[in-house]
Every structure is written in structure tokens, then in C-alpha cells.
């Protein structure tokens, strides 16, 4: 029903605007502040400097102080927001002197820009995505799925609380997924290229798109239609790239400087504690002692490819839409676990496909989504967002465990073992969070709680990756059997 969907979308907006009332990352923490200041600084840089100087170090652009390290679409977005800031109150983006601006008016302005992105991109995108899933799989799940996407606390807490614009890249990726589901491959290629040009982390989603689209084009019987399809998709992707990267394409140096900013090998395999394999191994085996940075990067690349390629090859040969979503989940989880320079927030890229899989495995996916919020707890605590995180997660949990929605979830099989595992894991997570708040770590291990959280979440995500592979292989077999019969 339209009015219910509208109510859900408005609820999403309400939740986001309420989370916006909280503190943001780096509030009152000079000299570097946090992601909020980073975003503001990019507005300052893009508004005041020539396009060519955006990514290069200079007298007016100190890359050590939050240098731009996202692709051009982010830069253009910062530029637009910066123009709005300038017309509203020029002191927000004045070169140099605006560093660390912290007024209530500025906070309202910045929060509003995220909410504008929510209204213009994320909310329509999740509406489209849930409608597309509903239509493709005939599952009558639009309402629940929209609510799930609307209330998922991870994305809200990071974007509207911590302060980032993941809603834009995730929204574009969601439209791309919806386009794949509706067989609009050109649109999918276009949207995904945009998403990739907003945040390079969208690479986590790139392989499944690539193998699905390649598989579809190859499945054309005549060579001619295959060639036209392939050139069309390639043209779309390359044109979008060319247009967006135009200011830096005049020389190889300029382009490689941008690339260098996007993939900073120098920053090490991980910065803060993050729930991936390397950070967990590092507990007992100090990686930095044994490997140089570029060696580590190669190890990451190798392991990521090993874990990512099989699932994508399966997708390529056994192409189907549920399989695409499953591959998306597996690939992004593998990237999160094994790749180089992973941030806590990147788990949001795994959460998006997880929500898409909700109709087949509701209990598992809800569990995963809660684990994903849990894995970000140290970050959220640093931003003083623990209370809203807890409240938003409890709200999310109750809504989806509530009996009110049971009649929409006929697929739930009473799997006692699974339910027990989930309950044990949830209790474990709750106790760890309570311990994190209540028990001060000893001076010898100041980071013990974030580390415990990282390792526990990493174990969960790893299990989910294994689970995803098992499900995928089972799907293959079923397909094969169907064909044999």
C-alpha cells in the first residue's frame, strides 16, 4: 500500500534526522578533528581551488590535513555542497581560516546536507531496490524490505551520526542492483560506475557486476548481439569515467596522482582495530614485524583474489538473480576480511547485499546485520554514539523480531539449532558491549575491548563467508539436479 510505504520512507527520514541531533566524529578534538571536518575541508578545498589542484599537495592544499582521498564524484559533490555553504555563510568554507569550524549553525547545515542526500538518493534508491526485489522474486516483501533498509542502524549511525555520505554510494549501488534484477543492464552499468566514482570501496561490489554482465553478454547466441552489448556496456562505463576524470586526464602524472590518493599503500594494512582477518592475526603474529608494506599489500591481494574468484566464477557459469545477490554478499565479505586498508565502516558494503538476501534467510541476515553494528561499536563509542546505537539497534531488533511481522515471514523454518546459535551469539555480543562500557582495561592492554570486539566480529563474518559459499554451492547443485531431472 502506497501510504504504508510512504510512512516507512518518512520513518526513515525521521530516524535519520533524530540521529542527526547527536555529536559527530571529531567533535571538539583539535587539531585533526574527524570525518566531519574532513568532509567540510573538502568543501573548502574544492570551492576555493582550481580543479587541477584538488588532489595535489600545494601551499593551499595540505594533503596531510584531510587531503581528498575519494574519487572525483565525491569531489564534485563536495564542490556543490561547498557552493551552498558559501552562499549561506562564507565563513564555513573560507580557505585556511575555516579549519575546525564548530558552530551549531554549521552542524545544522552539514546534517542537512546528509539528509538532502538521503531524500534525493538513498530513500528513492532503497524504495526502488525493495520494489525490484519484490517484483523479480514475486515475494510480496516490499514493505518489510523497505522497513529493513530504512531502519538498519549501521548506515544511519555512520552517515547521520558519525558523519559520512555512504548513503550516496550505497544508494547508487542499490539502484544498480535493482537494475540488474530488472534486466536493465545498461542502467546497472551506468549507476554502478557512478557509485564506484563516489567511493572506491564500491570495488567490493565490482566483481559480481562484472561477471554477471559479462555472463549475460556472452549468453547471446549471435556474435553480433554479443558484440553490440559488450561495446555498449564498455562505452557507458568508459564514457562515465572519462567525463568524471576529465580534469585529470591531461597528463599521466595528474591521473596517477589521483589514483595514488585513492589507494594509499603507505597507510598500512589497517589503521584502527577492524574486524578483518589481518587485524585478528596481528594479535598473535605481528604482521608488521615480518612483512614490508608492499609485501603485505601483495599478500592481501593474493588472499582476496583466492577467496573472491571462486564465487564469481560460479556466478559466471551458473548465472541467476539470487545467485548474483549471494555472490555480492560473498565478494564484499571476502574483500572486507582480506583486503588492504579496510575501515570499520566498510562493513556497510556487506550489509547492503545482506539485506537483499533477507527474504531467503531472514534470521541469518538479521543476525549478520546486528553483528555488523556490533563490529562498529568502538568507532561509535569514540563518537559518543553508544546510547543512540543501542536504542536504534534495539528498535531494529524488536521491529523485526516482533510478532507483527511474523505473518509476512512464512519462510522462516523453525530451526532450533540456528536460533540457539543466534541467541548465544547475541548474548555474547551484549556482554562484550557491557564489559566495554563498564570494565576499564588495564594499562598494559588499553585496547583490549576494541580488540575483542574486532576478533569476535571477524570470526562471525568469516563464518558468514563460509556459510555464503556453502549456500552458493548448494544452489549450484540444485540447479544441476533440476537440469538432470
Amino acid at each position, binding site marked *: *500500500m502506497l*501510504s*504504508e510505504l*510512504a*510512512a516507512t520512507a*518518512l*520513518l526513515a*527520514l*525521521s*530516524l535519520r*534526522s*533524530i*540521529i*542527526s*541531533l*547527536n*555529536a559527530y566524529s571529531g567533535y571538539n578534538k583539535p587539531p585533526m578533528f574527524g570525518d566531519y571536518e574532513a568532509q567540510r575541508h573538502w568543501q573548502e578545498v574544492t570551492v576555493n581551488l582550481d580543479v587541477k589542484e584538488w588532489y595535489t599537495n600545494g601551499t593551499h592544499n595540505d594533503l596531510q590535513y584531510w587531503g581528498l582521498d575519494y574519487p572525483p564524484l565525491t569531489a564534485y559533490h563536495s564542490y556543490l555542497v561547498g557552493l551552498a555553504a558559501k552562499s549561506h555563510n562564507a565563513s564555513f568554507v573560507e580557505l585556511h581560516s575555516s579549519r575546525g569550524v564548530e558552530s*551549531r*549553525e554549521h*552542524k*545544522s547545515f552539514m*546534517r*542537512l546536507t546528509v*539528509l538532502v542526500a538521503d531524500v534525493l538518493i538513498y530513500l528513492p534508491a532503497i524504495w526502488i531496490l525493495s520494489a525490484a526485489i519484490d517484483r523479480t522474486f514475486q515475494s510480496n516483501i516490499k514493505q518489510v524490505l523497505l522497513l529493513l533498509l530504512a531502519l538498519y542502524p549501521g548506515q544511519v549511525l555512520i552517515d547521520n551520526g558519525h558523519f559520512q555520505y555512504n548513503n550516496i554510494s550505497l544508494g547508487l549501488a542499490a539502484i544498480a542492483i535493482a537494475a540488474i534484477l530488472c534486466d536493465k543492464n545498461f542502467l546497472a552499468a551506468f549507476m554502478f560506475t557512478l557509485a564506484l566514482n563516489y567511493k572506491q570501496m564500491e570495488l567490493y561490489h565490482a566483481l559480481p557486476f562484472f561477471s554477471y554482465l559479462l555472463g549475460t553478454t556472452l549468453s547471446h547466441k549471435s556474435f553480433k548481439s554479443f558484440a553490440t552489448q559488450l561495446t555498449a556496456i564498455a562505452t557507458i562505463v568508459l564514457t562515465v569515467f572519462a567525463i568524471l576524470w576529465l580534469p585529470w586526464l591531461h597528463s599521466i602524472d595528474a591521473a596517477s596522482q589521483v589514483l595514488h590518493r585513492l589507494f594509499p599503500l603507505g597507510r598500512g594494512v589497517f589503521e584502527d582495530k577492524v574486524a578483518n582477518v589481518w587485524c585478528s592475526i596481528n594479535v598473535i603474529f605481528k604482521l608488521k614485524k615480518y612483512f614490508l608494506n608492499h609485501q603485505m599489500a601483495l599478500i592481501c591481494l593474493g588472499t582476496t583474489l583466492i577467496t573472491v574468484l571462486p564465487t564469481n566464477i560460479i556466478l559466471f557459469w551458473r548465472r541467476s538473480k539470487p545467485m548474483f545477490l549471494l555472490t555480492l554478499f560473498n565478494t564484499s565479505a571476502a574483500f572486507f576480511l582480506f583486503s588492504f586498508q579496510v575501515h570499520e565502516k566498510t562493513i556497510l558494503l556487506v550489509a547492503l547485499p545482506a539485506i537483499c538476501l533477507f527474504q531467503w534467510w531472514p534470521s541469518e541476515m538479521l543476525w549478520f546485520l546486528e553483528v555488523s553494528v556490533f563490529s562498529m561499536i568502538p568507532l561509535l563509542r569514540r563518537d559518543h554514539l553508544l*546510547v*543512540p546505537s*543501542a*536504542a*536504534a539497534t*534495539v*528498535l531494529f531488533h*524488536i*521491529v523485526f*523480531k*516482533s*510478532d*507483527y511481522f*511474523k*505473518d509476512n515471514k512464512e519462510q522462516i523454518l523453525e530451526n532450533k539449532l540456528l536460533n540457539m546459535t543466534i541467541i548465544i551469539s547475541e548474548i555474547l555480543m551484549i556482554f562484550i558491549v557491557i564489559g566495554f562500557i563498564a570494565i576499564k582495561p588495564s594499562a598494559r592492554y588499553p585496547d583490549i575491548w576494541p580488540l575483542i570486539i574486532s576478533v569476535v566480529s571477524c570470526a562471525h563474518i568469516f563464518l558468514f563467508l563460509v556459510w555464503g559459499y556453502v549456500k552458493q554451492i548448494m544452489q549450484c547443485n540444485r540447479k544441476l539436479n533440476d537440469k538432470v531431472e
Partner: protein
Amino acid sequence: MSGYFWQFVGISTALKVLLLPAHFSTDFEVHRNWLAITHSLPMNRWYVDTVSEWTLDYPPFFAYFEWLLSQMAKYVDPKMLVLSNLKYASPETVYFQKISVIVTDLVYVLGVRSCLAALGVAKNTQQHITGCLLMLLNVGLIFVDHIHFQYNGFLFGLLLLSLSALLKQRYLWSAFIFAVLLNFKHIFLYMAPAFAVYLLKFYCLNKNGNQFALSVGKLLTVGLTPFVLSFGPFWRQLPQVISRLFPFKRGLTHAYWAPNIWALYNTADKLAVLALKRTPPNTMSSTSSGLVQEVKHIVLPNITPETTFLLTLVFMLPILMKLFLTKTRDQARLLMMRAVVLCACSSFVFGWHVHEKAILMCLIPLSLLAVVDRRDAKYAFILSVAGYFSLLPLLFELDLLVPRYALYLTYVAMLYSQLDRIYKPKLKFQLVEFIYFVGFLTIPLYEHVFSRLFGVHERLPFMPLLLTSLYCSLGVLYFFVRYYIYVLDITWPIWPAKRRTPQVKFSAAKRKRKTK
């Protein structure tokens, strides 16, 4: 599905916790000051103290309640209990006070539960689910209690408990709870006539001579006990307490005009001044100056408190008469709820110095009626659109602007879709009503876009408030008239039968059959 009630309670509590960082209003300081007064002064100074301008002006039970809270507050942050610590708002204080609102809302939760049961709404039906959603996630209470800051939740809880006791025929219990409620917040006096009439008719009058006197005696004893308990300790300074409770020095309208008839009256006066080009004799006390001052009308005759009381009473009479003339308890069940709504609405429309928040006194009982009867639902929707919108100016802080519109729209959309689930075929609105709903868009558009584009927002700073209260008052008055006519029509024992118009007869008869 029976677990959904407490799950909704959980959802609403989580939402309230999320609202902890929201900016609060001066009412927060008012209540903090009361904590300080009751904690640090002897009782005989409670209603005399004037250290802060926010003197204690609620009845003694509320003061006792604040005293009780202060006993816990001293373990949280004793500095909030210091009288001279004006505008003290440490994080602990904010959390303590806001969480006390969330916790005392439990009374409201119990009230909702028992009132839905008393109205005969069966559990696990769409009606019951809708009723729970509308009441537990009520956006008006969220605005007024959990953002603006007040304790209405638990007061309305007492009201609902009293109403449900009445409907379950536990009359003495109902009278007792209602009397307690009056000693917490005396604004509920406006509903007292409905309770009095109902109790008189169904508790006292359906008994013979001796028993009648006995029942009146019992009722009075039970009803007056809370007053004795509450005002007893203050009997030496009763006039002082009463003068604090009923401050007639405040004007006809509040700083922001509540959307009632006086908003229209004030506007008419302003327009007349403009039209006749009469210069105001004293610009200081002009009505829109934004301060709580006495109002002097310039062209139209001045309104005295007596006039407003007379008007309120006169407009309460028909529904009270009807309630009194109702024969059976079954017929009176819903009528009692409607009488409560109409009494509250009469006082809202005609009352002296009405606050915009008082619209909740109509909206909350009406939300319960909305799940019971189709036509009540329609009127509830109209009043909800206007009434909750009129609360928006309470949340004027810059960063509350998006949440206030988003929450309001979410609630209205939820209300519509929930009513849509109950009533098939859909609720139909007339063209005028539909145009009225759409017209609400113009107010935020003017406030946030046009007034800034044309640069008039500095010259006419109160224009958005004026527009809001004017436009909402149209809706409130429309509701009042239409709903009154509808309620009186329904089983009116005398005049529909005499009337010759067959349409009315037919519909009345049809409805009669339905109620049976």
C-alpha cells in the same frame, strides 16, 4: 501475535531514548526549578517562593511527585536541586529528567491497555493493533513530552485508567483516579463535567431513594479524599495556592495563539485596526508581541475570563444533556468518550489562556475512538492533521526543524494507512477537507522559502506563527462543529424523529442498528 503490545512499548521506548539529545524548552527549567523548590524548601514555602520566575503552579500532588523525584535526583546530581542554580542543565540533569518522563510513561502504557480493553476492542484484531500504534507512538506526546519536555504521558495514563474504570463500571475507583488526576494537573477540570454527569446518571440515579443518598455520599467521600490529602497540608495558605493555580493575570491568548476561536478573534481585531487605520494606543501590549501579557483588543470588544467560561459551559451543555438523557449503559459507552472529547474541545476552543498543548486532551481520547467507529475515525484524522501541526511551533530550534516535520508526516501517514487497514471501503474525505490538508504545505513553504526569498522574515517574524494558528484554528473549529453535530445526531432521542427529512432518519436508524 499477542506479544505485539509490549513490542510496541519497546519500540516507543527506544524512540524516546533516541530523542534524549533533542533540545528541550523552558519547561525543562520549570520542572528543574520545581525539583529544587520541593527539595530545598519547607512545604509552606513551596507555593510562595519566587526565586525563579517559573513558580510552582500545578496542584500539590504534582509537587509531591517532584519531591519524590528529587529524592532520587540527589544521587544523580545534587546541583540540580539548588534553588539559585537557574537554567542548570548538566548532562546528568538532562538524562535524569528526560528518563523520568520515559519511565513514568509506564502509567500511560497501562492506561492504553486497559482503555482499549474497556472499549471492547479485542486483542489481535487490526483495531487493537492500530489503537496501540496510534496511542503508544503518539506524535503529540513525543513532541510535548520527549522533545519539549513535560509529564503529560503519565497524566494521560491516569485519565485513561479512570475512563476505563468508568466503562468497566468500577465507578468509585474511576472517581478516585480522576480526583487524583485533578490534583496532579487541574486542567483536567475541563473534563470533569462529563465524568460528573456520567457518574450521576449511571452510579447514583439508577438507585432508589435511600441508596441514592448513600451512593452520593460514597462518591463524594471517594472523590474528595485526594483533595484533602493534597491540599490538606496547605490549608493555611489556600488562597495563595489557588492564586498560583489560576493565574488570571495572564492574557486571553498565550504568546503563540492556540488554534481556537480567539486566534480568529485576535486576527479580526488586527485586520480591523489595519482597515480602520486606527493607531494602537499602547504598542507594548499588542497581541503578537510574543510575550505573555494581557491582551487589549483595539476595535473589537475586550474578552473577559467570565465570557470565556460562560461560552465554554454553554457549549458543553448539549453533550452533557445528551449524556444525561442516554438510557442504557451500552449506548453511553462511546458517548462518554465522545463527551470527554467534546468537553475538552469546548474548553480548547473558548477557554481562557489556552495552551496549544491542550489539544492533546481532545486528540488522545479521539485516537481511541478512531479505531472503534468509522465516522469518528474520519473526524479524528481531520483533527489530527490540524492539531499535531499546531504543536510544531513548540519545536522551533534550528536542528529540530527536520525531525519535527518528518515525525509529523510519518505519524499522519501511519494514521492514514492504519485507518485504511481497518475500514473498507476507504475513508472518504470531502473536497474541502482535502484542499484543507493540501493547504498545510503553504505554511512551511512560506516560513522556510518564500519569506526568506522576499526578505520579509525579519520584518514579520511572527507571521509563520500567526499563519499556523490561524490555519489550524480553521481545522479545529471545523472539526468541533462537524463532530458536535455528528455526535448529537447519532441517537438523539427527541428531534431526529420529529424531523421530516428522510435522509437523517434513515442514517440515524441505520446507525442505531449498527450500535446494537
